[in-house]
């Protein structure tokens, strides 16, 4: 016998249960904390990067990493490449400022050329980020190398090899870069500190090789001729320093002369270390620099309340000392394929001696 009252209350209970369950399922899950604002602030923004040249391995690493972030979070990221041409760089920067991007990323060829333009950008309300090479005008953020420390590290490496009593001599060479470049100016400060602390060290030459390997070769060959007992050479960039390595090898002095430099840490550099053209490389880990830069891009874009020129962030990236014993493998010797997003594995672009 069906009791209508019981059945009615049972049906009501079921209906209520169903209604509550339906509500629970169809109700929206609250978004991850902080995500909604972040995504909203990045979407549709415009970022322009003016490098020194896209031919540099470190620039390629940075762009690969930041481009992926741009694809993930749907903002536009453009590169205006002046290819080491100063005039083209100034024009590219002026054009970029005229387009009023939300963020302007710069890699300054020297401390003066773009200083006034960056100030103009800040006054126009455009936020700025400097990568690895600073300008006289301080940008909202700087991600790159601590050049004073780098000067100390490189000359310190030469001091280890050349200041002691067992060294072949106390003579060292500094192959400078572009005289007004940020790296050059501040590495010199670090170098001078170490030279003062090690008075036995003798700096026999500090000619600028201007990032050109042939010039580095010529200078090193000339100096080796004058000082056949040369103990060490330090340089501003590994792709320039291989010229010095070639001069040392041609004179048959590989092993006597310690060749120290710094660079992006790509597989080519590790290859050159294995070939004996470089003794020690202080890797800037440009792949990691790219990720830190991407973080700063996200930070500057996702805080619209921060005005251009208001903050002065600085981040000195990690430095890894590489020599023949550890210049192998994926971690320290990245290739561009390593940095790309390849869910099914990336094709191996590593040179044969590093596989």
């Amino acid at each position, binding site marked *: 016998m069906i009791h209508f009252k019981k059945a009615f209350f049972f049906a009501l209970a079921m209906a209520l249960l169903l209604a509550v369950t339906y509500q629970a399922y169809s109700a929206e899950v609250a978004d991850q904390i902080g995500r909604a604002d972040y995504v909203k602030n990045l979407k549709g923004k415009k970022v322009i990067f003016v490098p020194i040249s*896209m031919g540099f391995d470190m620039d390629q690493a940075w762009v690969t990493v930041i481009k992926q972030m741009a694809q993930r979070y749907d903002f536009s990221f453009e590169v205006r490449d002046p*290819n080491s041409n100063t005039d083209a760089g100034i024009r590219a920067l002026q054009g970029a400022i005229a387009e009023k991007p939300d963020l302007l990323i710069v890699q300054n060829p020297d401390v003066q050329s773009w200083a006034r333009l960056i100030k103009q950008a800040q006054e126009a309300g455009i936020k700025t980020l400097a990568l690895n090479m600073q300008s006289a005008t301080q940008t909202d953020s700087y991600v790159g190398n601590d050049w004073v420390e780098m000067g100390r590290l490189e000359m310190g490496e030469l001091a280890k090899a050349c200041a002691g009593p067992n060294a072949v001599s106390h003579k060292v060479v500094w192959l400078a870069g572009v*005289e007004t470049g940020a790296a050059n100016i501040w590495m010199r400060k670090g170098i001078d500190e170490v030279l003062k602390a090690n008075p036995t060290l003798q700096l026999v030459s500090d*000619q600028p090789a*201007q990032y*050109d*390997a042939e010039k580095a070769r010529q200078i090193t060959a000339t100096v080796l001729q004058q000082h056949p007992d040369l103990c060490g050479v330090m340089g501003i960039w590994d792709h320039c320093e291989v010229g010095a390595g070639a001069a040392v090898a*041609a004179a048959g002095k590989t092993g006597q002369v310690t060749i120290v430099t710094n660079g992006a840490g790509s597989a080519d550099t590790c290859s050159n270390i294995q070939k004996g053209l470089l003794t020690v490389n202080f890797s800037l880990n440009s792949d990691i620099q790219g990720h830190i830069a991407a973080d700063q891009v996200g930070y500057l874009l996702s805080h619209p309340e921060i005005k251009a020129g208001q903050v002065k962030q600085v981040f000195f990236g990690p430095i890894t000392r590489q020599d023949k014993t550890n210049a192998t493998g994926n971690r320290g010797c990245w290739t561009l394929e390593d940095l790309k997003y390849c869910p099914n594995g990336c094709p191996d672009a590593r040179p044969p001696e590093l596989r």
Partner: protein
Amino acid sequence: MSPEAELVEALPSGRNGRSSKFDTFKFNQEVLVIAIWLILFVGFSIVLPKFLTTGNIIILLNNVSILGTLAIGMGLIVVGRGIDLTMVALMVTGIGIAIWTANLGIDFTYTVFIGALFVAAVGLFSGVMIAFGEIPSIFTTLAIASSAYGLGRILSPVYEFYPHKNVPWLQVIGSARPLGIPVPIFIFAAVAVLMSLFLKKTRFGRFVHATGDNPNAARTMGLPTRPLTVAEFVLSALIGYTAGIIMLGLVGGMNTQLYNSSLVYDVILVVVLGGIGLSGGKGGVRNVIVGTIFVGTLINGMTILNFSYSIQNLIKCLILLSAMAMDAVLNPRDEQTSQSGDI
């Protein structure tokens, strides 16, 4: 002697390569530069203890072998009353193409010819535009330099081209020293000797001088000026490529940023300093060698003295200016010498 050669002999400037021992000694720019060079050389030898050693002189010559080879090619063009601003761009792009194709797997010994073919083709194009299109060489070569370099960058926009595999004969260029002299010096000397023989002993060489001195008169006489111009530019492109091979052997890579550097103007400096006038028709390999050795000595001395880059530039320019100013005073322009070419 053929009729054309007789006419060439009769030209007022046809004394090149046939100076007799009884000529009056002309204190021209070449002699001036040699004098200044002697002062520099003796000065450095006294002040710098290790300057005048065999080792240092060899290093000095080795360091200017690339500049000198480029200057020989440029000298040929300037004597023919032209200018070739494509030399550095072709050197960089040609070698870049050779390395890039070698990195795809082909043996570098074969891809060298691919690069050579590319530069020769571009040189041919330049020559045709200048000779048959009658566009002044300065504009043509400026534009073609930019285009050729851009083409190379579309192919592979790297900062430096490195061959992935070691090439044995390149390493010979870089480190071998037959008879104690590095191979690049031999290559520079070979190019210089061949060009000198070409300019002085062959008919075509004499025609180059004639065309440079007065192109219209040469053409009226029946000289093949236009094919000659085309051949000149192909030759200078190949000479530039040879300089690139030397650089590749010495450094192990080709730096594409050389295009943006002042290298091509340093080459013109060497040519002009040595005494080859930009108006064409006068000069030869000896002038180029004088200019090259002068610049090489200056740079070597300043490197040993460890002068800063700014001071080096200043000194280089002051010496160039004084050499040319003194030449203007000692050899004032007259109706013939003040002819200007298209530059």
